[in-house]
């Protein structure tokens, strides 16, 4: 299969998934049939391992590898994620848990990639393209990063943490003594000039983080932008091959770029997971289609797996059926 063949197959798959997302999501939104509901609790848990999460119904959300654009994920490593949601009238908390045999929490080596998880909400009216929105279709992303979590839990994971035997005698304008520590020993303005990403104001280069969740706004692939205001908190814990990652934010949107969840009984959400040891980063991820989350109302639990199965069958049909379809065309 040539590059165009692969691309065409990916595009067809993406189109079908988008259609599945739109019809299922759209229909559910229209008919007020939520996939799953956030359970009310008087006090939200702060730990992803808290037993309070048991009060929320668990929904299994199927994930498929992103194959619509390049770079694509050619093989899925995480086929599903379990989602639970709680709210206390003020804030919404969502727990994502999935199986991952490797805990990839370091990214300070050229060949190491972190694990990650993200939730996407539409900001503008209607259902956006599931591929992070499109021009005019604004989405709000909450992106938890395992390496940020590690930086918060253990302090900035510096060169010395990745390379324990590391030694370098001097750096321009450094203070302190070898092997030195970021950021304190590199805080002189002249020393910061040698940290190009940091001096350019790149949030990814910021050694000190206040939350492991980055809040972004996006209008399609390649456009994710760090929001001026960061309001999502979270925590991720890996135990025995399972990541449990929680996100929480006030229902009320703090600004125009954030999804407003207050008063909206039904909210569209989509999920994504990255496995660092499979070199998953950026668009190389697995994602769900749009699902509906009900906040603040009684719900009849629609089995989410039903829609998941629907999406999976549609995806498999296109993916596997494509070569046959192409073979039949007289051009090839």
């Amino acid at each position, binding site marked *: 299969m040539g*590059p165009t063949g692969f691309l065409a197959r990916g595009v067809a798959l993406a189109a079908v998934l988008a259609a599945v997302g739109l019809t299922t999501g759209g229909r559910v939104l229209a008919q007020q049939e939520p996939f799953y509901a956030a359970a009310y609790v008087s006090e939200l848990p702060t730990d992803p391992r808290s037993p309070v999460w048991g009060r929320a119904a668990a929904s299994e959300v199927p994930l498929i590898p992103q194959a619509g654009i390049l770079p694509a994920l050619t093989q899925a490593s995480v086929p599903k994620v379990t989602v639970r949601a709680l709210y206390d009238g003020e804030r919404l908390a969502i727990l994502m848990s999935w199986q991952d045999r490797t805990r990839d929490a370091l990214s300070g080596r050229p060949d190491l990639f972190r694990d990650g998880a993200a939730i996407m909400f539409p900001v503008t009216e209607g259902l956006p393209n599931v591929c992070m929105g499109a021009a005019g279709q604004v989405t709000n992303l909450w992106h938890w990063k395992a*390496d940020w979590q590690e930086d918060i839990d253990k302090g900035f994971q510096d060169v010395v943490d990745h390379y324990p035997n590391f030694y370098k005698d001097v750096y321009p304008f450094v203070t302190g003594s070898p092997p030195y520590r970021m950021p304190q020993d590199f805080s002189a303005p002249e020393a910061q000039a040698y940290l190009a990403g940091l001096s350019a104001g790149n949030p990814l280069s910021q050694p000190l983080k206040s939350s492991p969740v980055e809040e972004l706004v996006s209008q399609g692939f390649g456009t994710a932008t760090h929001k001026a205001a960061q309001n999502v908190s979270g925590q991720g814990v890996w135990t025995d091959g399972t990541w449990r990652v929680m996100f929480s934010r006030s229902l009320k949107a703090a600004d125009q770029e954030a999804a407003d969840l207050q008063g909206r009984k039904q909210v569209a959400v989509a999920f994504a997971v990255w496995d660092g040891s499979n070199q998953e980063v950026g668009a190389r991820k697995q994602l769900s289609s749009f699902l509906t989350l009900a906040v603040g109302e009684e719900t009849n639990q629609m089995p989410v797996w039903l829609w998941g199965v629907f999406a999976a069958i549609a995806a498999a049909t296109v993916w596997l059926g494509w070569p046959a379809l192409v073979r039949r065309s007289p051009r090839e």
Partner: protein
Amino acid sequence: MPKVFNWHINREMEYPYPATPPTRQFAAVFDTNKCIACQTCSMICKNAWTSGRGQEYMWWNNVETKPYGGFPQGWDMKVLSLLGPQSWDRGTNTYTGMTLIESALAAAQGRQVTGYLPEDAEWGNVNIGEDEAVGLIEGGTSFGLPHPVWSFYLQRICNHCSYPACLASCPRKAIYKREEDGIVLVDQERCRGYRECVRACPFKKVMYNVATRVSEKCVACFPRVEQGLQPFCTIGCPGRIRINGWIHSPQEADLESPVDFLVHGRKVALPLYPQFGLMNHIYYVPPIHVPPEYLRQMFGPAVDRAMENYRQVKDDPEMLGVFMLMGATDRWIEKFRVVQGEAVGYDAKGDEIARVPLKEPVVVRPNFDPVLTVYRHNTM
């Protein structure tokens, strides 16, 4: 995918963006025959640009001994084997194989460009293979051309390609090519450390900063270029093997400009692995003692003629003039001329910035210096 024309391979090729050539294109010629592998170029670049936290392993400029040296280790062999068989039509110097973007493997990898991400250890031990020749010198071996036992030094910086693989692979469009000089840069604010570019660049000249967690690359010393100065690695070279200039297409060649003159005029300098399809702009004078089979793989079928032409240098005052102007000034030589046994370099305003004799004068100093009343010895 749009089609663009690449004169290095004499044909159109696929590239994800239409061609938007810059007003002028940064380039350099490196004469591999004169390099002494002193690594002054590597050190000057490191001092200037990569002495910060997270850049410890980076060598935006490196000099490796061929055939075994490489930074990262084995980069060339890995990329060549990923690309598979590469064929040329030798009559027309047209590359008939696939480029890294056209290769079916790119799509199979789910990528825009065929490539690989080096493992951490491959970036370490930068000197492995240094000064190792292809074999041992057996008893009875004599030197002829090409040398039966050979090695040579390959000086490598980013090529500031016309069709950069790094730029093509970045889903965030964080890499850009400057309109004013063709220099390729990673936007330090936009990059999110995905390392698609590190994987895609076959020359492995984008590197991931392990402290700022975003990617960085050779910046062609752009603050110097903007002031009419040549990059640090060019001016620091004691072997005087490098010269910078603007490169044009063969049709638009300006033979008064030193780089165009060597590439298009005398055809002695060639791009490295043109079959990758990047239209890369560091041009090498091939090492004339190395077997041409090896060099054809590196520089394409035009290498035989380049070696032949280079051998004429002592009888070609103009060509000799450009080689003598290498390392003669820290300024960017826009034009050169050879007048009465001297090579003269001019800046953009036409002012003279360098003047060197084609032949260094021979000075014989007497054994006794009457001024200092000392004897000079030529040994210590």
